[in-house]
């Protein structure tokens, strides 16, 4: 499905995750973050960039991987994206939701 986010037409899946990372930019991220109740700050961007880089390299993501990335530790990750950090951060970063096989 399509949605207008930050004045642009963006392709989303039915759970609100971007289906094409090329459509992502910082304005889109900021608006999705707002929907998640998060105001993006300087601390958020390096995390989002890290997630995107891992996704481009086809590396499966986990909370532990983010915690060991050197970008943030797990507690900081929770503080930046309260509730479900990997799930929310992935949506804001424009990459697929972390999922199991079923």
């Amino acid at each position, binding site marked *: 499905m399509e949605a207008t986010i930050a004045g642009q037409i963006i392709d989303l899946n*039915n*759970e609100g995750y971007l289906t094409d990372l090329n459509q992502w930019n910082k304005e889109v991220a900021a608006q999705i973050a707002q929907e998640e109740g998060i105001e993006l700050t300087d601390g958020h961007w390096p995390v989002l960039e890290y997630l995107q880089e891992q996704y481009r390299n*086809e*590396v*499966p993501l*986990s*909370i*532990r*991987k983010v915690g*060991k990335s050197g970008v943030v530790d*797990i*507690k900081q990750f*929770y503080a930046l994206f*309260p*509730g*479900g950090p990997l*799930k929310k951060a992935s949506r804001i970063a424009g990459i697929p*939701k*972390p*999922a*199991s*096989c*079923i």
Partner: protein
Amino acid sequence: MKDLVILGAGTAGTMMSNHLAKRLPNDWRIRIVDQRKIHHYQPGYLFIPFGTYKEEDIIKPIQQFIPERAEYIQQSILKVDAEHNRVYLEDSRVLDYDVLIIATGTDIAPEEIDGMMGDHWHKSVFDFYTLDGAVKLHKKLENWKGGHLAVHITEMPIKCPVAPLEFTFLADAYFEQRGIRDKVKISFVTPMDGAFTKPVASAHLGHLLEEKGIEVVPNFNIMSLDGERKVITDYEGKEVSYDLLVTIPTNKGADYVERSGLGDELNFIPTHKGTLQSKAKENIFVIGDATNLPASKAGSVAHFEGEILLENIMRYINGKELLDEFDGHANCFVETGHGKALLIDFNYTHQPVSGTFPIPGVGPLNLLKESRMNHMGKMAFKWIYWNMLITGKHIPFVSSKMNEAGKNFEEANV
């Protein structure tokens, strides 16, 4: 004489030794290393806690499945020196290789979580991902009078990601059979956002949890376990108390992978997802649970990888370009209790949907739908495993690449 060495004689390693024994030219020697003597039918662990299988039903000697042409070396692996194409074993033996296949899988690492190991381990906190854990859990369940059972996933990725859910369904049926279901509260505690994370599976199967009276605690990333208070705590301070905790601890690749500098933070090995060649070195290939691929860690995946890996090793030794063809295909039976099961078939790009399997439009198995036939398929699979899968025989009608016919993909586009 040229040398091919396989590390690990589990599902993937044993299968590859059989494939290669038939195809490698005669000037190649095959050696396979594993520290164990006994091959475990790991899908059987799930049934041990409920008494459906006993220990002796799911073990056989490794040697029985290694082809005559290959030499089996029962020894621990110290280190791989990828630069010099050498494997060091604990008894100080050194194996030089031209081609290395890593198939050492994954194991549980409960020590990764603060407080998980302790006096309570295998007393009130259990795993069923080891034979030892499954057998001890069986003894515990037999005498258990009831209380709060929490089934818990520590973190992803784990081997056989559907097993925790299957365990939960089977536990529900088991307590019902024993007439104490009303004395047991069952919770499913997961770091994911639900018991089902894919939209189609969720739509088809979400009702199962409610029907069976199973409470789901989502988005729970465990930080620590307090064995005395019988409480697990997550990074946000959320607590879940239990009387009996059945946890899937952190899954990690083998320790020698870390010592060899070949793994990621969980000792899984960066691997090209289509060719199964390691990213570290051209002559190292990786198969099964040992890889870091975004595919499920499951025997069926290793089986499908096997056909492509065999082809790629033949191409590699003949100086030809590798096939970039593995599609992440997985095929798993999911027990739902009371003699029924589901079947799911999926790959890197397609989530599990409904349909028929293995013959499009015919079946006899139904995808993403509970049936007795699926359960019979799961139980019959033990014979297929010992007699066809690890011995490298082709399983009729089931191709390594996922068949897109007979599947209702339009469901995924809603």
